[in-house]
């Protein structure tokens, strides 16, 4: 075995391509003359985007119009030349503007900068002559003509357009002050919280309609009522929440009723915007009532408290009665409660935390310095939203609330911690005379921050605002229907500036677990949310600006690429948004290629789109770009032959041979192996392939190094020949062995000089030669709770993968096993070389469905885009750092991933840690830059930048969570955990994460919840559902019979699948399809109507016997037809006579000319459009034996050994403290 030599890790010519900041900081810097010092005449021709390089579509007009956007934005003195400045932009907008158009597209040039798929084809010119004569070396690129990036754009007119410095910076300042000044704030939450809140930022003049405000008041008032035995009319939601005035005890509380109607008496409206005086009263009433009896003593140091509240009862004009009563009621509540142990209750989360993924200690921060706890009890009482949502008769709440409010208390404080204690609250808060409030109010804008104590008293209002802003709570126990009927959309990132928002990276490409980054690590720990990013860097994009320029503008210090979120100090300088260094702009950058004028740099596409691709100049290559090289390794052991995969694989390969991505230099080779290696010489002049069998597998050599990898174009006949013969050639071989290790070593030798892609088809356990394995799985243990052998048995494949990675070779695995193949070990070859793994368990080509799936998958694999010799670097704003990486690659340095191949279906995850406090910045950025060689031999850099605002309060953090992304990251972390520790540990960690997050939400809420409610923020309401689904997924389930290989493969999928597919794998989509023609439709890009049936939850409760249901698991769809379905559906949509004539092998739908059938097809095609390869379909009768396939995926229901969703919620409820 070649020893893992250093060169392999990084052969000299491949040293971290210039890319790497450290090694190459000289590169782009030195090579690019700075226009400043150099007379224009000597400037390199400015080929910002030389017309020759552009596809015809990119006319100057468009670019100009594009640039218009920014010009307008900063309304500088730029002559506004474009006829329809914003018109075009907005029109570009509208077609995309379907519900989930990613913001980026709106910003992306409508048709403008060329899109990836058609790169300027520079390399077409040079015929590459690799194999013409037997060479000593493997065909290499020596013959290749160097293609310098064509520089010949016309020189721009030298007139410089002097522009006043753009006012850009201003746009970066979110207008929080608008906010503070709005009286709303008074209502509640600490000001910063608000300044971060999305809607207002978006809409600077945001003034909540008065009645909203009232509704807030309502809420504030309502809750006490609830506790006071009021019957609450169930269905009413926030605004119209009407308290039955006649409610038994609480009439006293009546101040509410006035507001309770949601109708505001005019005076109130006017006054207040500011919480109408008696609003305040009402809340103070609450306080007046609640604290004394119970929590008052237990937690609050009287001193401050009294200051803050001066609660003498007589203040509240309307309320003596109420007070008395609610005291009673509340004391009832509390009497039945556990001792007041606020403090005591908090720790428990701690105790559960250890097993959490973030093993860091938490919660310490939580315990409030007591003197700050002022307000909790009233809040908790006043706040209680459950009545609104849960429709519970209130007495339930009364009887016993074992865990009533305490956790709320610390929370309040969390906020108060943040801000300096304001001027003595008692001043401002003068409950005696409601009118006195007004002056106070007017002060507000000024001293907003200082009065936070006061705010807290009004968290009543906060609840209203939360509602207003969509921060409503969601009771998981009361509402089993958590899944929204439409697709779960990724939360939007609000940066406080619409231009930036629309420039931000698409959530499909780059996603963070939170849309707001907590400003410090302790805040992050309090939220208990994992912080990380998921990235799908090479996703097929429809709009991708491609730029070719001499100088790629990057920060000199940290090598960040210029992006929409940098600060322009003036037209000549920019400030890096990652390291804050001030850099100079090269003159070229100020040149607008469209108007051919110098000026505002913000017109450049780099500044307008956060996803962009550069065609890299020569400094970014350490060797000439490699050609596309594909090598196919076929297992021809007995098991493999029996499975029959070879026919399908060869047939597909033969068909797609010509569509393999690549240029004229593309090389292809084929190697077969059983206990020997079968090389196929495809030399010039041969009439048919020449097979050479090497029996010596322990020390591999290549029989004839030259003709094993051959130019696709030149030898296509020989290859065709070979692929036709191959499937039958070994039919009579009975060799049971498979020398995978040796074959891989041979592949490594064959491709070492160029790099490329190796596709391995493995059907049996590699049991001879290097890397031989023995079966480890004990089939009787498949259902046990402890799973062994998740880790590799040896490190042969890993070491080989590292060597391959050093030579820019990626190995992709197609595992078509019928027996155990030790996926855990052999997957190492792909995991560390940036490959991908496809698994077809129990494959038999005769099984139509499997074969279909394999063929589709392989076909997609062959024709999809590919990037060679890639590296990806992730940079993030100072203060953050990348902690752990997930995916298939080799981590070459702290932020550099080596990806010998990158494919559009590969995704990566990174955990991020907060090293320094971020309180002095408003936003943070992540930038992923992927440098790769396209199949056409161009070096390109694809840059994605994601910008996220920073927030300072716990409730902001929690309400900004991205549940799907969190689940994606958790799954990756859990895979690591199961490998390093054990599966049960990982499962426990999942549950603890759910508990911790819900607990911390409860704390952040600052309120009591009913004994039967389990509150979650709307943005996290699906989290427990997904977690319960994860616990039942193939990767993490226990107790159900799961083959080890399947489990390991599922784990690998968790690590590498793009988020959308991952979620679909965890929690398949279920749709009713029996009435598609009645469903609302949307039009797709081709103007076809697409029915949009609602998503159903995965439980039998959602099925009915008269329907047909389509379950989409990503790679496979199951159409379950229930017995009672209408005959019309059967005959028209499915084209069968009657129910029983649906056969067990119905794998496709007939195409019929009727509405039902068309809609069904349209819908299925629509679903398939989002997938890399169309899913296979299986139509199943409800009484066929196959239905188990469907029912086993109804994961919300109880299945053997696993809790149903509802039971899981109950379990969480008992654990959430």
């Amino acid at each position: 075995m070649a020893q893992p030599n250093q060169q392999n890790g990084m052969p000299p010519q491949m040293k971290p391509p210039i890319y790497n900041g450290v090694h190459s900081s000289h590169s782009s810097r030195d090579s690019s003359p700075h226009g400043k010092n150099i007379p224009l005449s000597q400037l390199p021709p400015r080929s910002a985007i030389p017309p020759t390089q552009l596809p015809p579509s990119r006319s100057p007009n468009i670019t100009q119009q594009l640039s218009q956007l920014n010009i307008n934005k900063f309304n500088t003195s730029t002559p506004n030349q474009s006829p329809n400045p914003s018109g075009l932009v907005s029109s570009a907008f509208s077609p995309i503007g379907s519900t989930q158009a990613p913001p980026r597209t709106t910003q992306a040039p409508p048709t403008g900068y060329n899109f990836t798929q058609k790169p300027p084809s520079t390399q077409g010119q040079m015929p590459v002559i690799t194999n013409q004569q037997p060479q000593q070396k493997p065909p290499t690129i020596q013959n290749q003509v160097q293609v310098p990036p064509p520089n010949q754009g016309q020189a721009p007119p030298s007139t410089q357009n002097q522009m006043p410095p753009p006012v850009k910076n201003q746009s970066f300042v979110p207008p929080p002050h608008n906010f503070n000044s709005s009286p709303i704030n008074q209502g509640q939450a600490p000001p910063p919280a608000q300044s971060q809140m999305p809607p207002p930022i978006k809409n600077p003049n945001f003034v909540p309609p008065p009645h909203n405000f009232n509704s807030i008041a309502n809420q504030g008032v309502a809750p006490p009522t609830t506790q006071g035995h009021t019957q609450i009319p169930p269905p009413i939601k926030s605004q119209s929440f009407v308290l039955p005035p006649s409610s038994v005890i609480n009439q006293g509380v009546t101040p509410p009723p006035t507001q309770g109607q949601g109708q505001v008496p005019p005076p109130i409206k006017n006054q207040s915007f500011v919480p109408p005086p008696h609003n305040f009263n009402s809340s103070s009433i609450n306080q007046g009532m609640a604290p004394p009896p119970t929590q008052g003593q237990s937690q609050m140091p009287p001193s401050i408290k009294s200051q803050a509240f001066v609660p003498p009862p007589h203040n509240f004009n309307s309320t003596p009665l109420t007070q008395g009563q609610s005291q009673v009621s509340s004391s009832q509540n509390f009497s039945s409660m556990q001792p007041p142990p606020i403090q005591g209750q908090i720790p428990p989360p701690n105790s559960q935390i250890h097993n959490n993924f973030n093993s860091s200690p938490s919660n310490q921060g939580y315990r409030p310095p007591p003197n700050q706890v002022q307000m909790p009890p009233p809040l908790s009482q006043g706040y209680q939203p459950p009545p609104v949502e849960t429709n519970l008769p209130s007495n339930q709440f009364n009887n016993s609330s074992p865990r009533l409010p305490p956790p709320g208390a610390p929370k309040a404080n969390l906020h108060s911690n943040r801000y300096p204690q304001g001027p003595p609250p008692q001043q401002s808060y003068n409950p005696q005379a409601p009118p006195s409030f007004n002056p106070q109010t007017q002060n507000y804008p000024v001293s907003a921050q200082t009065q936070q104590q006061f705010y807290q008293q009004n968290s009543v209002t906060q609840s209203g605002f939360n509602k207003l802003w969509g921060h409503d709570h969601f009771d998981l126990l009361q509402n089993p229907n958590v899944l929204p009927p439409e697709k779960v959309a990724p939360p939007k990132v609000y940066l406080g500036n619409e231009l930036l928002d629309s420039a931000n990276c698409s959530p499909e490409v780059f996603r963070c677990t939170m849309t707001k980054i907590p400003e410090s690590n302790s805040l992050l720990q309090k939220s208990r949310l994992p912080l990380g990013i998921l990235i799908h860097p090479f996703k097929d994009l429809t709009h991708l600006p491609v730029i070719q320029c001499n100088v790629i503008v990057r920060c000199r210090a940290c090598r960040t690429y210029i992006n929409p979120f940098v600060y322009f100090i003036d037209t000549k300088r920019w400030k890096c948004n990652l390291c804050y260094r001030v850099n100079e702009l090269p003159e070229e950058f100020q040149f607008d290629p469209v108007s051919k004028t110098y000026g505002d740099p913000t017109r450049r596409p780099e500044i307008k789109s956060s996803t962009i691709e550069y065609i890299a100049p020569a400094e970014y290559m350490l060797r000439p770009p490699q050609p596309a090289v594909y090598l196919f390794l076929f297992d021809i052991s007995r098991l493999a032959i029996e499975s029959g995969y070879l026919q399908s694989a060869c047939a597909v390969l033969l068909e797609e041979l010509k569509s393999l991505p690549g240029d004229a230099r593309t090389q292809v080779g084929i190697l077969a192996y059983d206990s020997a290696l079968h090389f196929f010489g495809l030399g010039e002049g041969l009439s048919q392939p020449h097979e050479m069998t090497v029996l010596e597998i322990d020390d591999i050599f290549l029989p004839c190094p030259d003709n094993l990898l051959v130019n696709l174009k030149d030898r296509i006949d020989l290859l065709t020949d070979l692929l036709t013969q191959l499937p039958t050639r070994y039919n009579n071989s009975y060799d049971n062995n498979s020398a995978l290790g040796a074959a891989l070593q041979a592949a490594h030798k064959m491709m070492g000089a160029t790099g490329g892609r190796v596709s391995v088809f493995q059907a049996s356990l590699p049991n001879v030669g290097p890397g031989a394995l023995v079966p480890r799985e004990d089939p009787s243990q498949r259902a046990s709770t402890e799973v062994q052998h998740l880790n590799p048995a040896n490190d042969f494949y890993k070491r080989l993968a590292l060597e391959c990675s050093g030579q820019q070779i990626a190995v992709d695995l197609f595992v078509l096993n019928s027996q155990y193949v030790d996926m855990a070990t052999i997957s190492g070859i792909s995991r560390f070389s940036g490959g991908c793994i496809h698994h077809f368990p129990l494959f038999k080509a005769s099984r139509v469905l499997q074969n279909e799936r394999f063929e589709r998958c392989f076909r997609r694999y062959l024709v999809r885009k590919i990037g060679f010799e890639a590296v990806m670097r992730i940079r993030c704003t100072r203060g953050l750092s990348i902690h752990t990486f997930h995916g298939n690659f080799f981590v070459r340095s702290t932020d550099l991933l080596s990806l010998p191949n990158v494919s559009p279906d590969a995704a990566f995850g990174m955990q991020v840690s907060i090293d320094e406090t971020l309180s002095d910045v408003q936003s943070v950025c992540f930038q992923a830059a992927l440098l790769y060689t396209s199949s056409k031999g161009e070096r390109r850099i694809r840059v994605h930048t994601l910008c996220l605002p920073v927030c300072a309060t716990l409730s902001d953090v929690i309400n900004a969570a991205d549940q799907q992304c969190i689940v994606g990251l958790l799954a990756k972390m859990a895979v690591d955990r199961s490998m390093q520790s054990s599966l049960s540990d990982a499962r426990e960690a999942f549950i603890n994460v759910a508990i911790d997050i819900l607990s911390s939400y409860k704390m952040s809420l600052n309120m009591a919840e009913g004994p039967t409610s389990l509150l979650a923020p709307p943005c996290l309401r699906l989290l427990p559902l997904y977690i319960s689904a994860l616990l039942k997924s193939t990767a993490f389930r226990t107790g159900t019979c799961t083959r080890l290989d399947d489990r390991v493969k599922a784990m690998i999928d968790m690590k590498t699948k793009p988020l959308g597919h991952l979620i679909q794998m965890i929690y398949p989509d279920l749709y009713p399809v029996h009435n598609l023609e009645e469903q609302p439709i949307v039009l797709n890009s081709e103007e076809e109507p697409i029915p949009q049936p609602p998503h159903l939850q995965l439980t039998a409760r959602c099925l009915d016997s008269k329907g047909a249901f389509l379950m989409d698991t990503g790679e496979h769809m199951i159409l379950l037809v229930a017995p009672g379905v209408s005959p019309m559906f059967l005959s028209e949509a499915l084209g069968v006579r009657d129910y029983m004539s649906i056969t067990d092998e119905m794998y496709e739908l007939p195409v019929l000319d009727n509405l039902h059938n068309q809609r069904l097809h349209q819908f299925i095609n629509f679903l398939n459009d989002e997938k890399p390869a169309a899913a296979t379909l299986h139509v199943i009768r409800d009484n066929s034996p196959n239905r188990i396939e469907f029912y086993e995926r109804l994961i919300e229901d109880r299945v053997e050994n696993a809790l149903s969703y509802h039971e899981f919620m109950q379990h969480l409820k008992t654990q959430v403290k």
Partner: protein
Amino acid sequence: MAFNFPAFSYIIALIVDAFLIFFSLFHVIAFDELKTDYKNPIDQCNSLNPLVVPEYLLHIFFNVLFVAAGEWFSLLLNIPLIIYHINRYRTRPVMSGLGIYDPTSIMNADVLTRCQREGWIKLAFYLLSFFYYLYGYVIALENAHDHT
């Protein structure tokens, strides 16, 4: 001046400990280089792994001498480290060669910080024990002197 076995074991421990100090220095530097991107993790692991077992063996070697010399207290001081070493080696990632560092996982921030901390702590420990052995050597010599 007589020279007895305890004194011999201490002088050996002293010398070996000096080597160990260099080892751990090298370890600390190597991980620092990794962290600052100067080195490729594969190279780094290749250079670190061969040193792991010798370090452990050297450490165990002079502890064997302590046992032979009946220097129980010195042994006691070292036992935790021996146990740590054994455990560390037992739980190493699956690998065919000697050593405990795996280039594919070494770059995880957790592992990296752990290794770095381990290096510093060991460095401190070896340094302190260096002086302790020196002291032990002198004491042992004196004891020998007293007896004679």
